[in-house]
């Protein structure tokens, strides 16, 4: 083809001229299509509907576990968009990008629409019959459920079903969950999930807690953070210092971001206690004795942070009380993650923050509705049970373990030990593909549910100590696919087969929920004299039911004996770098990866879209001759992946970071083959106290594969050549930029 060697640049030039021609010639009135579209009128019109004008219905977001109260904008029977519910103590009228994408979860073209048995479409009767046939041949203890976070009345039905089967095997698994933190909090303060009051603190020191991105309840924390940063606040503008090996969105917002050696968070916390004592902080003598050996010099050596900085942060902490110290994903993902988190909690204790910026949460008055919160230890336990052949019939719901379990756990293989695997599935994801029976779920915008979030945010006021709420999820529209069913409906149908008499009054989950709510209307804030239907309509209409919960206490419970930290480990010669899997604000654990808005919204720090990437410190990259866009092979002892290099100064030189959630195979058209799945290559290392999978304990080595790509990202000069650029673009001061040369 020497004759026609058009190159890309020429093509684009000519396309520019040609485009104008098309624009001119295309200006017809060709889009008026009289008589082509159909206008379907209502047969009978509900009172509140005016075609063309939207109605809003309160519901609860299902995109993550925070349980934000939202309202759906519905026009002519279609849900179009979600907005925050301003009466919510969780999100106070705001929403995040992940929540907005809920409509793409609902309208997704890759949803499962029909029950499928061994790859063939079946009816619901056949599907439920198949479950019963299998259950007849096994004992109760051979049945197991693996779910994600589950709360409210769906959880009640699930527990009832397990009781009916005589099984106690409910495992709640969330790949990205603050499970080690819960255990540390329980030990340090007496509650698993206290209320953090960033808004009351004069200073926040966060050890890798990405509370503006993906940590626990980010929309709520972002609002607290906005208060925290207001100079007009009585406490003045707060100071945020972030210690972490890889910069998170919160780290990027901090006044001081400090890269520290991964795993040395606990050492830093004790070093800060010791240094704070030097600035006048009074310590109990036994604690002083333990932290004495954590001198700034030693801590500096262990963590790689200059001791002037340690002293500076310690001084600020002493000066700015109350403060708040947070232990996030970066601190807990180690064998000694619990000790790290406990050392960090001790910092709160000696600074007197417990009870001031760490407040007691309230518990739900109905413990059966409380959330069964997910962790990673339960996956490990479930996996062991599978490997031992203990479970013959397994159900999975709201979680995708085949995707998110490290390959070294052999989960996919072990799952084959179970004779009959039932997946409640929204997408035909990796776990659903491994299942014998796939039951299609209605989307969160088509289904009824009640939700009790783990983190109990409360409005300001005297009742805050006992305030806890239950949120309603109600259908925004008719089901898109009539053969899908909600989890509540499926569980109810399964229960009816075992206990027909107990559930004969309930045609569906709606009637069950209705009856459960109106029967308890006094406890749910109504009066005994209220009309049932009026109470129900008002309650569902608001979407939030404040409950009078049980007050808890937080107290400072740690002693010097709890502070035991292992020595900081040296580098691994064969695998010299540490891999930090990053949980990003939009992709989270990857369950929503098939929603294109999430794929196309640029990562806040790297601006990369539609792919995964590996963040490498420019120093490290320069040593290895790595440039942006080089395809890097990352190998651990347990596996390897390939992805594009992104040179990022916000990462410790001995650390690389890859976002989780990418690299699906079999979830849908947008997720499949986009990026690489970093979960697959994690080493099976466990936190020693809780048994949690330690996510940051994987050592890796990297090598250039020889291939390169031009990164698709938002940042950088528009139209500028990205290929071959060795370092991050130089930032010019605004007055030095010569705009005359801009295109």
């Amino acid at each position, binding site marked *: 083809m020497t004759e*026609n*060697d*058009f190159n890309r640049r*020429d*093509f684009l*030039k*000519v*396309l520019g*001229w*040609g485009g104008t*021609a*098309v624009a001119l*010639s*295309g200006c*017809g*009135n*060709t*889009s*008026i*299509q*009289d*008589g*082509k*579209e*159909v*206008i*379907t*009128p*209502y*047969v*009978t*019109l509900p009172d509140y509907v*005016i*075609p*063309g*004008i939207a109605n809003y219905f309160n519901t609860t977001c299902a995109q993550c576990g925070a349980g934000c109260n939202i309202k759906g904008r519905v026009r002519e029977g279609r849900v179009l968009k979600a907005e925050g519910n301003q009466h919510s103590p969780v999100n106070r009228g705001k929403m995040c990008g992940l929540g907005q994408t809920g409509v793409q979860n609902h309208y997704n073209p890759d949803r499962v629409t029909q029950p499928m048995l061994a790859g063939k479409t079946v009816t619901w009767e056949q599907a439920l019959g198949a479950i019963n046939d299998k259950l007849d041949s096994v004992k109760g203890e051979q049945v197991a459920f693996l779910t994600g976070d589950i709360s409210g009345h769906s959880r009640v039905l699930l527990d009832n079903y397990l009781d009916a089967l005589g099984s106690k095997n409910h495992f709640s698994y969330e790949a990205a969950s603050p499970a080690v933190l819960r255990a540390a909090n329980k030990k340090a303060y007496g509650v698993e999930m206290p209320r953090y009051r960033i808004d009351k603190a004069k200073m926040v020191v966060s050890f890798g807690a990405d509370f503006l991105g993906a940590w626990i309840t980010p929309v709520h924390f972002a609002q607290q953070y906005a208060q925290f940063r207001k100079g007009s606040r009585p406490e003045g503008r707060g100071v945020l210092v972030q210690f972490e090996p890889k910069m998170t969105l919160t780290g990027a917002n901090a006044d001081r971001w400090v890269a520290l050696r991964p795993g040395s968070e606990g050492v830093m916390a004790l070093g800060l206690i010791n240094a704070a004592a030097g600035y006048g902080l009074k310590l109990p003598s036994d604690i002083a004795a333990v932290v004495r050996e954590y001198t700034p010099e030693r801590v500096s050596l262990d963590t790689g942070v200059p001791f002037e900085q340690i002293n500076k942060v310690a001084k600020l902490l002493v000066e700015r009380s109350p403060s708040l110290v947070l232990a996030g994903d970066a601190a807990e993902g180690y064998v000694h993650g619990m000790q790290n988190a406990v050392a960090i909690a001790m910092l709160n204790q000696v600074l007197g923050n417990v009870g001031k910026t760490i407040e007691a949460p309230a518990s739900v008055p109905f413990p059966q509705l409380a959330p069964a919160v997910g962790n990673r230890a339960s996956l490990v336990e479930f996996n062991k049970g599978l490997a031992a052949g203990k479970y013959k019939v397994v159900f999975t719901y709201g979680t995708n373990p085949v995707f998110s379990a490290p390959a070294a756990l052999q989960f996919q293989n072990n799952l084959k030990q179970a004779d009959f695997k039932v997946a409640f599935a929204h997408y035909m994801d990796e776990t659903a593909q491994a299942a014998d029976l796939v039951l299609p779920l209605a989307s969160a915008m088509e289904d009824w549910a009640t939700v009790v979030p783990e983190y109990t945010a409360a409005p300001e006021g005297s009742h805050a100590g006992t305030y806890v709420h239950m949120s309603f999820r109600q259908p925004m529209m008719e089901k898109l696919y009539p053969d899908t069913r909600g989890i509540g409906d499926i569980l109810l149908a399964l229960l009816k087969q075992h206990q027909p008499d107990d559930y004969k009054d309930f045609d569906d989950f709606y009637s069950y929920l209705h009856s459960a709510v109106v029967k308890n209307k006094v406890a749910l804030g109504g009066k005994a004299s209220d009309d049932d239907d009026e109470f129900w309509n008002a309650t569902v209409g608001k979407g939030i039911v404040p409950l009078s919960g049980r007050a808890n206490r937080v107290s400072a419970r740690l002693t010097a004996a709890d502070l035991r930290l292992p020595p900081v480990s040296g580098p691994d010669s064969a695998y010299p770098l540490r891999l930090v899997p990053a949980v990003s604000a939009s992709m989270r654990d990857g369950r929503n990866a098939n929603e294109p808005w999430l794929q196309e919204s640029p990562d806040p720090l790297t601006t990369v879209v539609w792919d995964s990437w590996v963040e490498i410190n420019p120093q490290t990259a320069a040593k290895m001759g790595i440039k942006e866009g080089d395809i890097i092979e990352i190998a651990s002892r347990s596996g390897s992946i390939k992805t594009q290099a992104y040179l990022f100064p916000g990462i410790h030189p001995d650390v690389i970071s890859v976002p989780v959630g990418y690299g699906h195979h079999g979830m849908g058209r947008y997720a499949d083959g986009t990026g690489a799945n970093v979960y697959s290559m994690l080493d099976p290392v466990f936190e020693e106290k809780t048994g949690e999978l330690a996510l940051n304990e994987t050592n890796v080595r990297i090598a250039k594969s020889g291939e390169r790509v031009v990164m698709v990202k938002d940042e950088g000069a528009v139209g500028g050549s990205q290929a071959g650029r060795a370092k991050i673009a130089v930032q010019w001061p605004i007055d030095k930029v010569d705009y005359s040369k801009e295109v």
Partner: protein
Amino acid sequence: MQHILRLFILLVGLFAGVTCYAADKAPALTTPDQLGPEIQQPIKFPHFRHAGDAKDGGMQINCMYCHTYARRSLVSGIPPVQKCIGCHRSIMSVRNKPRIKKLFEYWEAKKPIPWKKVNDIPDFVRFNHERHIQRFYFQLDRPYQEVCGYCHGDVKKLTVDRREKPLTMGWCRSCHMKDHPISKASKKIGHGPNDCFTCHK
């Protein structure tokens, strides 16, 4: 340079071809009689009977009795089947006419009538019925048939509706350039908005 020229000619040819093809396929904006195309509706609804003048055998029903959302919403609304039945269940004289029988068939099956859209504008245009009706019918107190007729023509004389105006941007603008008093009580003169974003949001 030569290969750029060659590429240019190739692409121009390609675009020209595509454009000609597209122009050929596009439906004509108006038929020879200056109206939109005739459209087959599931029921041949007689507008002249409902809205027409008494001398022509019409009942002079206000357009907004059936298209009830025109004054409150973006769209004027096709009446729900319930509305048709509301009157027709007590008009026994025409109960056995084929069109009314068909109407009752839809009603009894609780099925909506799949009317074809007659006055279509592109999806990138936001037209608001409410603004026009509020201004001309309620504030300027002009007769409803005149107000609706600005865009829809003389529907009261038709059986099944047909588009009678071009509904193009130039045509909209031809009216939006005209001055008119802004309300009956005021002598102030104004005209419709001519900003791009008013319609192209």
